[in-house]
């Protein structure tokens, strides 16, 4: 096994987690559009959105923990989990920690939906945007591949896509009464288990 295998693994997992996060955010932003609905039924998009989010969290946790056996830094679990406790780039690593925690909150909100009010759920779900911004800044600031051309393009293209989608979604949402008009709280669908109600999905 390569001497630096763990180091390569944490770096590659960081990029994959970032791309999965990007895909999940894009899914979330576009799932209510007619374009996506024509391709895939909404309940499937919602299910995939949640699946992608869980996969993102899993790969992110892998990205964090796989660096522990790496011998170069000798990171401790505390240094990785406590924000700004890292000896390497403490500020940017701290942002990465916050990104992980906010991601856990946003994903937890999927399951809290039947228990909390719609506005609280929505607020919790909006932490996803903070997660994405924090992940970008963490990747650019703490990533050792940031200087590589492909990494620069990757951050630039994904960042621009999400930024444009957010701007578009805000205007689109306003024109469809989503931003200004909070939705009614849907009844939890115990029988379906996974699929949200139609009106709930409408207002995601």
């Amino acid at each position, binding site marked *: 096994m390569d001497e630096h295998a763990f180091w*390569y*693994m944490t*770096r590659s997992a960081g*990029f994959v987690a970032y791309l999965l996060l990007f895909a999940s955010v894009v899914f979330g932003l576009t799932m209510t559009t007619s374009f996506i609905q024509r391709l895939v039924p909404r309940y499937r998009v919602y299910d995939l959105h949640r699946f992608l989010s869980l996969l993102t969290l899993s790969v992110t946790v892998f990205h964090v923990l796989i660096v522990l056996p790496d011998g170069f830094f000798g990171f401790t679990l505390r240094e990785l989990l406590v924000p700004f406790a890292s*000896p*390497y780039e403490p500020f940017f690593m701290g942002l990465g920690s916050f990104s992980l925690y906010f991601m856990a909150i946003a994903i937890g909100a999927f399951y809290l939906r039947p228990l909390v009010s719609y506005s609280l759920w929505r607020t919790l779900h909006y932490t996803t945007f903070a997660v994405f911004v924090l992940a970008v800044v963490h990747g650019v600031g703490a990533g050792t591949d940031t200087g590589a051309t492909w990494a620069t393009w990757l951050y630039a293209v994904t960042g621009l896509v999400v930024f444009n989608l957010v701007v578009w979604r805000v205007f689109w949402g306003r024109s469809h009464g989503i931003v200004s008009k909070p939705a009614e709280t849907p009844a939890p669908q115990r029988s379906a288990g996974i*699929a949200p109600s139609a009106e709930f999905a409408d207002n995601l």
Partner: protein
Amino acid sequence: MKFKRQGGLKAGILAMTLGLLAVFFGVVKSEPGISAGSEPTPTLTATPTTQPTTSNSRIPQRQATPTQGQTTPPQATPAMRQAHTRTRAS
């Protein structure tokens, strides 16, 4: 049934994720300047994990002052000695 059909798609996403991990593993491994020297860059930029601290850096360090009874007179300079001689002579 509807959701079971998604199983294949999810398995595909999972397989794609593993494939991406492998691809990025190869990419970062071949990144020039990082793997070439067999030492990853962070070792160059990382700050030491633990600094040996023998004193609390938040407390300003005072110059050592002699305690009472241990005072030693300042070393006389040649100018002082000359002035002293002149005083005695007058």
